[in-house]
C-alpha cells in the first residue's frame, strides 16, 4: 500500500486526470438514476444537483471557517496562561 501511494504521488498528473474522469463519471451516473426516492423539488428538477450542492457547501464551509479564523478568535496556545489573562484574574 505504501508503494502504491508512493507511485501515485510520483505520478500526480495521472492521478488528477483519473480523479476528474471519476467526477465526470459520477455526475453522468447521477443523471441516469431514478429520482423517485428524492424528497424535494430541486432534487427532481435540477440536474447534477448534489454535485453542485457538494461543491458549494464545501466552498462555503471553507470560506466561513477561513473568515471566522481570521476574525480574531485564533490566539496563542498559551492564551489562558498568559499574563494578560492572569492579570485579569488578579
Amino acid at each position: 500500500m505504501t508503494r502504491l501511494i508512493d507511485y501515485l504521488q510520483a505520478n500526480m498528473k495521472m492521478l488528477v486526470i483519473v480523479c476528474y474522469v471519476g467526477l465526470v463519471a459520477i455526475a453522468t451516473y447521477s443523471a441516469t438514476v431514478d429520482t423517485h426516492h428524492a424528497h424535494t423539488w430541486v432534487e427532481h428538477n435540477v440536474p447534477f444537483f448534489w454535485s453542485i450542492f457538494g461543491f458549494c457547501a464545501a466552498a462555503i464551509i471553507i470560506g466561513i471557517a477561513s473568515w471566522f479564523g481570521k476574525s480574531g478568535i485564533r490566539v496563542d496556545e498559551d492564551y489562558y496562561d498568559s499574563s494578560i489573562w492572569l492579570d485579569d484574574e488578579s
Partner: protein
Amino acid sequence: MTGSFIHPALIMVIGALLLPFIRGPLRKPYLILIPILTFGAVLSNNTLTGNFAPFQFMDWTLEFGRVDKLSSIFASIMALMALIGTLYGMHVKKSGEHVAAWFYVAGSLGTIYAGDYITVFFFWEMMAFGSVFLIWFRKGPNSLKVGYRYLIIHTIGGVVLLAGIMLRYQAVGDIEFSLLDVRNPQLYTWLIMIGFALNAAVVPLHSWLPDAYSEASFNGAVFMCAFTTKTAVYTLARSCAGMDILVLLGVIMALYGVIYAVMENDIRKLLAWSIVSQVGYMIAGIGIGTELAINGASAHAVVHILYKSLLFMGTGSVLYMTGKTKFTELGGLYKKMPLTFFFTIIGCMSISAAPFFAAYVSKGMIIGAGYETHLNWASWLLMFGATGTFMYNGLKLPYFLFFGKNNCSEETWEKAADPTWNMLSAMAIGAFLCIFVGSSPGLLYSMLPYPVHYSPFSAYHLAETLQLMGFAALAFFMFKKYLEPVDRQVLDIDWLYRKAGLFFVWIAVNPLQWFDTMWSKVYRVVGIGTLMETSKFWSWFDWNVIDGVIDGFARSVRVLGGRMRVLQTGQIQYSLYAAALFAACTMIAYALFQLA
C-alpha cells in the same frame, strides 16, 4: 440479579475492584475476561423484556434492570466498546486507569438499564467521577486543570438534573424514568433536558468536550469518545423524544462542530469537535421524534461509537508513538505508520458516510425523517453539515496527518511507527465492524427500537453520496491553502465561562474583600469598643451589686451564727429546758390570743 437478568455494571465494578490484586501472567487474560463476561451478560439480557432487579430504598422501588429494545441496543454497543477499549489499552500497566475506565463503563451501563430517575442519577455521577481520572492519568501539564474543569461542569449538570428530578417527583409523585410530557413542558422538564443535554455536549453547553477529550490519556480518550455523549443521547431518547427545541439544537451542533473542526490544529481536538457535530445528528433525530428518527438516532449512536473510537484509536496511536497531536508537528506518516493509516482511513470513510461504510446506513435515516416530517430546513442543513464532515474528517485529517507537508521533527519521525499488537488488533476489530455494519446493516436494524422500513442501498442514495463526496473533494483540493493548519488555538464559548469565572473571582477579591475588610474595621472600632465598655459595666455590677448582695447575706449569716453559737452548751438538759420553755411560751401566747 433477578431471574436470569445479570447486571453487567456489577461485573464491571467487581472486576475493577479486584483488578489491582491480579498480577503477573493472569493480568492480561483477566483484562479481557471481565469485558467479555460483561458483553456476555448484555447479550443474555437482550433475550429478556421487562423490569428486573427491583430494590426497595426508603419509599421508592428502584429499578436497576429495565430491559427493552432501546436499552438493549445501547447496552450492547457500550459493552462491545468496553471490550475494544480495554484491548486497545491492555498494555497499560497502571491498574488505576483500567479501574477508572471500568467504573466509567459501569456508570454508563447502569444508566442505560435504570428504570427510575434515582438510579439514573446514581450511575450518571459514577460516569463523571470515573471518567475524570482518565484525564488526570495522562499527567500532562494541563491535565489537572482540565480534569477539574470537566468535573465542575459535570457536577453543575448533575445538580441541574437532580433539581429537575426532585421537582418532577414533587409534581407527579413518582420517579419512573420514562418519556416526559414534552408537548407541555414544565420547569422540571427543562431542567432534566438540560442536565442530559450537558452530557450530550449540546451547544452552548459543549465546551467541556473538546477541552477534556483532547487532554485525556491515549486510551482514556477511546473510552470517553464513546460513553458520555452516547449515554446522554440514550437518556434524551428515553425522556425527551419529540421535544421540538432539540431539532434546532441538533442542527446548531452539527454545523458548529463542523466549523470548529475545520479550523482545528490538534488532531484529537478535531475529533472532539466532530463528536459535537455527529451527536448533533442524533439530537436532531430525537427532536424529530418519529419512529424513523429515533431508529436513525439509535443506529447513528451505534455506528458513531464504532468509527469514532476507531479514529481516536488511530490518533491515539500517533500520540502514543510520537507524543505529538498537532498537524503542525506531524505529517507524511503513512510511510511510518501504514497500518494505523489504513485503519484510520476506514474510520474516516465511515464517519463520512461513504457507501458501504458505517454511517452510510444511519445518517440518511435521520435526514430522511426530517424530510418526512416537513422539517426540510433541518434536513438541508444536516446535509450541509454532512458535506463538512467529509471535508474535515474524510479529507483534512488524513491529508494533513498522513500526507501533506511533513512537519515532523527528526525525533518525532524516528519515534513514529505502528503501535503494539493489542492496539492494532483493537483497531482491526473496529475497522472490520465499521465495514460490516456499513455493508450489511441487517443485524443493526433488527436491534433498533422500532421496525425498520428503510434501505440505504438505493441507486439514488448512492449517486447522492458519491456526488457530495466527489465534488466536496474537488472544492477541498482547490481551496486547501485556506485550510492549512495554524499553530494557534481557537477561542470558543468557554471564553465566556472563563471570563464569568474571572468576574466571580474579581467580585470575591475586590468588592467582597473590601466589604469584609471594612466590616472588620467597623467591628473592631464599634463592636469591640462597645463590647469592652459593656463588659466593664457588667463587671462592676457583678462585683458591687450581685457580689455585694450575696456577700452581705453571707456575712449576716456568719454574724448570726456566731451569736447563736455561744448559746449552745452541748448539754442535752439545757436543750430540753429551752425547748420546753419555748413550747410553754407559745402555748401561753396562744391562750392569751384566744381570750383576747
